[in-house]
Structure formats: C-alpha cells, structure tokens
C-alpha cells in the first residue's frame, strides 16, 4: 500500500514539474494517435455512409468483415506490419519500420474497421429516417453521404472518441513496429510497459494518469465545442 501511495506522490510531482521526458512522450502519443484517428475517420466514416445508402452485391459481406475486424488482435497487426515493413518485406524500401509513421499505420489498421462499422450503424438509422426525403429531393449519392455525415456529426464525434480511446491505449502493435525507442518512438503505453518492467512505478503511474487525463480531457473538450448538451441531442 505504501509503495502505491508513494508512486502516486512521485507521479504527481513529475506531472506538476512538467518533466521534459514526460512531455515529449505525451506529445508523441498525441501526434501519433490524432493522426491515426483523422486518417481512419477520413476512410471509415464515408465508407460507413456509403454502406448505409448504397445497395450492392457484396455489401452484406463487407459489413460482416468490418464487424469481424473490430476485434482485430493488435499483436497480429503489429506482426503483419513488421513483416511488410522489415527489410525483407515488400515495403521495406520505404524505411518506415521503427518510426512514428509505422505506428500511425498500425493504429489506422486497427481503428479503421471500428470507425467504419460504428459509423455504418449510426448512418443506417439516420438513412432510415432521411431516405424518402433525400430521394424525393433528388439528392445525388455524394449529397446523400454528405448530408448523413453532417447531420450525424455528433454520433461521429462519439465514434471518433471511441477510435481515439482504442488507439491511445494500444500497445501490442506499436511496440512491435515502433520498437519503443527513446526520443523516437516511445509513447505513453510503451513507456508504461517499460517502466513497469523496470520497477519504476512512479513514472509508470504518472504516464498512466496522463493517459487517462488525455482521454477524458479530449472527450470533455469535444463535447463542449460540439455543444452537445446545449442543443439536447446526443
């Protein structure tokens, strides 16, 4: 119990003192995760809207595959990406292994199916509500999708936050393709893994607290900006 309390005390000191290493790790975590979420949202949200409004032959199969990929094991993604990006792999020439770019790619692969699948669920309900009106107004396919994305933006915000939560807390894939190199690819989760193994619980706990604060802080900030409570729609 004393060790835990001491770890909390040390963690508080590190945060209050704005430890430079801590800040560097935190900023890299944010950069990697936010980039991955933006890319995954740009792919997954229009894909979800398209699947909601367009009927075509393999639609059900694609939805089933996307649902299945929501539970994609990060370690498997990391291993697959490692093989692709390693010198002997087909993308080895790009020199991306053990770089933040490789970590972003891993996170995009993991969260895109989540964002696409949840977006599809949200858009399916909205499409059921809007379908007749949009068809009656002769909206083009791209206008239909744009309308669903704009009017479903609050649900999409929640979906984006879900993707962010999954990505920022991810460790299995990024430790394989990032390598947890200090000052280059060390992020909050990989640092927590390392410091716990080293027995530096104070630093590990400080990193963990920051991780939690980031997730909750970003959520609160976005809710405030989106005025979800004021307009009474969530």
């Amino acid at each position, binding site marked *: 119990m004393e060790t835990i309390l001491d770890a909390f005390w040390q963690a508080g000191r590190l945060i209050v003192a704005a430890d430079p290493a801590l800040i560097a790790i935190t900023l890299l975590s944010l950069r990697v995760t936010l980039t991955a979420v933006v890319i995954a949202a740009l792919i997954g949200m229009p894909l979800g809207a398209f699947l909601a409004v367009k009927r075509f032959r393999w639609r059900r199969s694609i939805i089933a595959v996307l649902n299945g990929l929501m539970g994609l094991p990060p370690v498997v993604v990391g291993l697959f990406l490692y093989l692709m990006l390693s010198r002997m792999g087909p993308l080895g020439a790009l020199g991306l292994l053990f770089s933040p770019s490789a970590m972003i790619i891993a996170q995009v692969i993991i969260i895109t199916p989540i964002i696409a699948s949840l977006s599809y669920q949200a858009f399916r309900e909205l499409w059921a509500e809007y379908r007749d*009106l949009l*068809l009656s107004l002769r909206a083009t396919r791209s*206008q239909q999708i744009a309308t669903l994305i704009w009017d479903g933006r609050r649900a999409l915000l929640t979906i984006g936050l879900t993707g962010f939560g999954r990505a920022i807390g991810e460790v299995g894939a990024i430790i394989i393709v990032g390598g947890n190199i200090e000052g280059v690819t060390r992020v909050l989760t990989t640092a927590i893994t390392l410091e716990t193994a080293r027995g530096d619980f104070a630093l590990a706990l400080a990193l963990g607290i920051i991780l939690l604060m980031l997730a909750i802080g970003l959520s609160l900030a976005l809710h405030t900006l989106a005025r979800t409570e004021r307009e009474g729609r969530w």
Partner: protein
Amino acid sequence: MSSILPLSLRKVSLSRGGKRILGPIDFELGGRGLSVVIGPNGAGKSTLLRLMHGLERPSEGALAWAVPLKNARKAQAFVFQSPVMLRRSLVENLAFPLRLSGRPRTEAAKVAMDWAARLGLSGQGDQPAWQLSRGERQKLALARALITEPEILFLDEPTASLDGHATREIEALLGVARDRGMRIVLATHDMGQARRLADEVVFLLGGSLHETGPAKAFFHGPQTAAAAAFLRGDIVT
C-alpha cells in the same frame, strides 16, 4: 419551359413478396387543379403517390411524363405524412433543397428566411426543427417542398393527426399554391378536406382505381356503389 404534365400510367402495378398491392392502373394526370386521392385504409393511396413521384418502381407497366424523366424529377416535390426533419435549424431545413440544387448559401438562406416569415415562424429561424410543434413541422415540410417552386406537389395525408388550426393553415398554403398554377395531388382520409379542396377525385379501392372524375360530380353522384357507400361512411373493402 415546357410542362412535365400530363403523367400517364399504363397498366402500372406494384407487387411485394409476390403479392400485388396496387394495380394494374391506367390513369392520366392532367395539367391543372388539385386532385384528391381517397379510399379506405390499405386502398393504395400512399403507394400510388410514391409510384407517381418515383419513390417506388412499378413491378409492371410504365409511367411516362411529357418530358424526359430527368427533367420531370426536378419539377416535383413530396410532403410525407410524418414530416421528416433534418437535424438542423428551421431555416437550414428550408434552405436545404435550394442548397442541393446549387444555390449559394447566402441566397438560399435569404429565401429561407422569407419563407419562415411567410409561415409566421421568423422568430424561430435558428431553432432546431425537431423542437417545433407537430403542426409547425408539417408547415415547415410543406414550405420546404414549395420553396423550389415545383410544377407538381404530392402530399401524403399531410394533416393527419393535426389540430384544426394547423390543418387550416396547411390548406391555406395549398390554396395559394393551387391559385398560382401548381398541380397538386393530395391523399387524404379526411372527407371534409377532400370536399373543401378537390377539383378532381381519384377513388381507390383494394389497390385498384375504382372511380375518378370531377369533384362536384363525384360527391353529388358517384358512379359506383362502392364509392357511394364510402361517401355514406359505410365500411367498404
């Protein structure tokens, strides 16, 4: 610009799950006035309107406008029984069809504001549309249909479950639109409304076009026993 009317329906029918729910119907919708589509529940009133507007495709037969379909589609609007409100403000809902057709944002907003004032809702322009009362939402849905100045307007029981005041306002808007030359096709359960508004009556029964003709003649001397029974308030199937 040439009129999209008449609309001709030739042996049009619609089936679902192997069961025919409408038709075959032969009918021509001419160029003037307000047609009221009446009939008991399940007669096919909504389905006929949806077919004419292109929301349903006929299983058999064909519909033909006086102009190519692409041009005809742009000159129509539809008001649904349950008003579909976009998750936007009142003014944004009104401006939406104009924005879809490529009108600049400021111009669309100005026209929408004018319509909001005409509806007596200018003070609620920024209010989310879903917060309006049922009657206000239906007025908004009608104005959103009228804002593009369609040549023909379809309405599927727009005043069902509205109070008398809201119904009167909707009917007044329809009257103005008709007087300006807009062709209107209205499905209704409300026989009082049918008598107040109709120039022509289309009586459906069991998915078939049972009787059609000028409103005065229909209400004073229906040609078929089923239509006479329906007007008396008997149950007809």
